[in-house]
């Protein structure tokens, strides 16, 4: 029987799965140190043409340094960066076919919107008429037609963001670099802009490389995400794989909410793994290609939305645990319930309750005794190290 796919979406664009495809950008064993601190450590990565690629990680993980090395603002201490087969070593930023949208936007305050967008084209020595045509095209693309003569300080935050984008796109770079592109926008505008950026990217067929610390942003927009941890890549995969099949405890905990149980493998029968956990007894998992031996210390991770909460004991032999409702956070679209296992001092398990209906028959209350359970496919097996 064929395995079900991860998540509930199907992607038709996946050049990274084709071993014959030639990547557009390649980082080869790149290391960059600042003093004694290494920002990027022996990192290799390939990004394909047409991809919307996100570098995701907490601040200080090296994602910005990695992007700045591609733009030419930092020089790697060792390793190579190739763009379209060309080694970028020794090429200064002003001669690289990449353009960046800066986190602060870095709009030139003494120039009009028009002049900002035309700046890069003027440096190329493009003919005046062509510049005017391209600027008009960019203004239309960024929905800024009426604002050509304005100065940056006469624009709203969202408009400034679009000017920065238009300016970076004007030269039609081989790779567009986006440094926290939505970081300065408020929530509502950020959500709208996410989809605009995605539409723009597929319309232009351009390669986008984005740096972000915001997992939602990366999940929504990117074709693939590289989760970074202290200068290294923890996992590179499409969003649904990052979420449903994290490669390590770090990735599992960084992306989304998760419950982690410690335990040991008791038995392996084909794809069905049995783990004995001190907190919730026997856990059954369905995982392929498990290389760990029986007896190995492991972590089992379960996402809050995959746990079912009930007042009555479910008719299951495993994957269930009872506890007391400790905290309830009502968020509108779902409710986050924290359940304490084993009384005072015990661990808390997070359960996300989707609010499908407007009214619940048996609502959950604080201090209720409840049962938690999950499907055999819900659990994720993670190696015991770290």
């Amino acid at each position, binding site marked *: 029987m064929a395995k079900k796919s991860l998540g509930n979406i199907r992607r038709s664009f996946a050049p990274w799965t084709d071993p014959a495809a030639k990547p557009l950008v390649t980082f080869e064993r790149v290391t960059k140190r600042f003093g004694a601190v290494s920002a990027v450590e022996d990192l290799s990565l390939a990004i394909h043409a047409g991809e919307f690629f996100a570098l995701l990680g907490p601040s200080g993980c090296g994602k910005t340094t990695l992007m700045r090395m591609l*733009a030419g603002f930092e020089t790697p201490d060792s390793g190579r960066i190739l763009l379209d087969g060309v080694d970028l070593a020794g090429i200064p930023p*002003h001669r690289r076919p990449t353009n960046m949208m*800066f986190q602060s936007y870095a709009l*030139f*305050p003494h120039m009009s919107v028009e002049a900002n967008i035309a700046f890069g084209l003027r440096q190329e020595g493009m003919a005046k008429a062509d510049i005017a045509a391209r600027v008009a095209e960019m203004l239309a693309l960024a929905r800024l037609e009426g604002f050509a003569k304005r100065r940056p300080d006469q624009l709203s935050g969202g408009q400034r963001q679009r000017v920065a984008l238009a300016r970076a796109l004007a030269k039609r770079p081989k790779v567009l670099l986006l440094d926290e592109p939505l970081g300065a926008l408020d929530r509502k505008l950020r959500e709208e802009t996410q989809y605009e950026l995605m539409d723009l990217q597929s319309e232009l067929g351009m390669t986008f490389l984005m740096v972000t610390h915001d997992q939602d942003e990366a999940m929504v927009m990117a074709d693939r995400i590289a989760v970074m941890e202290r200068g290294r890549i923890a996992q590179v995969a499409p969003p649904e794989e990052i979420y449903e099949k994290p490669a390590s405890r770090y990735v599992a905990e960084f992306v989304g909410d998760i419950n982690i149980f410690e335990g040991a493998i008791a038995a392996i029968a084909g794809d069905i793994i049995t783990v004995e956990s001190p907190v919730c007894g026997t856990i059954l998992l369905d995982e392929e290609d498990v290389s760990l031996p029986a007896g190995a210390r492991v972590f089992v991770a379960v996402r809050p939305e995959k746990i079912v909460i009930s007042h009555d004991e479910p008719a299951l032999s495993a994957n269930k645990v009872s506890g007391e409702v400790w905290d309830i956070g009502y968020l509108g679209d779902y409710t986050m319930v924290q359940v304490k296992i084993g009384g005072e001092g015990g661990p808390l398990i997070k359960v996300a309750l989707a609010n499908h209906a407007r009214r619940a028959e048996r609502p959950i209350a604080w201090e209720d005794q409840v049962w938690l359970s999950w499907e055999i496919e819900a659990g994720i097996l993670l190696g015991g190290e770290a």
Partner: protein
Amino acid sequence: MNARHKLRRLAVLAPPMLWLGLFFFVPFLVVLRISLSDSAPAIPPYAPHWPGLGEIGTFIRALDIENYITLLSDDLYLGAYLSSLRIAATATLLTLLLGFPLAYAMTRAPKVWQPALLVLVILPFWTSFLIRVYAWMAILRPEGVLDQVLGQLGITSAPLNLLNTEAAVLIGIVYSYLPFMVLPVYASLERIDPALTEAAADLGATPLKRFFLITVPLAMPGIMAGAFLVLIPAIGEFVIPDLLGGSDTLMIGKVLWTEFFANRDWPLASAVAIVMLLILVGPLLLFQRLADTGRRA
């Protein structure tokens, strides 16, 4: 509420207004009144004297603009004004050419050094201005420090005879006013977001173009402030041309001093001062205007 608000505003505005009135406007009126009087062998050496409110009519009728006509008809004064402007403008340009790279280098220095560098720029102020100008006399005079050093190094064989030349005056002004250029230029350079020059580089601008298209325009408020801080006092400078410039250098500050102390012609000296003030007000208003448009941009 409204009355209290007005009162509070008045309380905030009153001290500076009072200060300006007492130490600028009133003295200005006194000098203006003397400039409209005639020179007379009296104490103080002008006429008419204030006769009291009863005879204010006769008093006002005795005032005239004769001194201003003298200023316009004698080439000496016009020449002095023009040469002051020329020397001050040249010195301002030289100060900018020297001060901008200095300020730029300071912003590029490691952050921990910058406070120390700023102190170094201000450090000369801890010694009296007059003493520093005297020191320049010792450096520039024939067989002075400069001649000796250059002679020892074999660069020059004969004394340069710099003292009592316009070059000495320029050296003196540039040296004395350099901090007034460096500080505002540094302040405006330091405020420029480094991401702006990076963005320009990213968009294809060479280092030279980044400098002239981004750095210089954004540093313009500082450059203008520095230029006027140097230009305006330099026009009226007296000590430097008197000590370093000798009798050949004609500057309006020196003319003023001569009229006042040597010729004891207070009314004419006052007229010179008033005209100098008017000349300085021109560029000041221009500066205000530029600063305003700069702020609106």
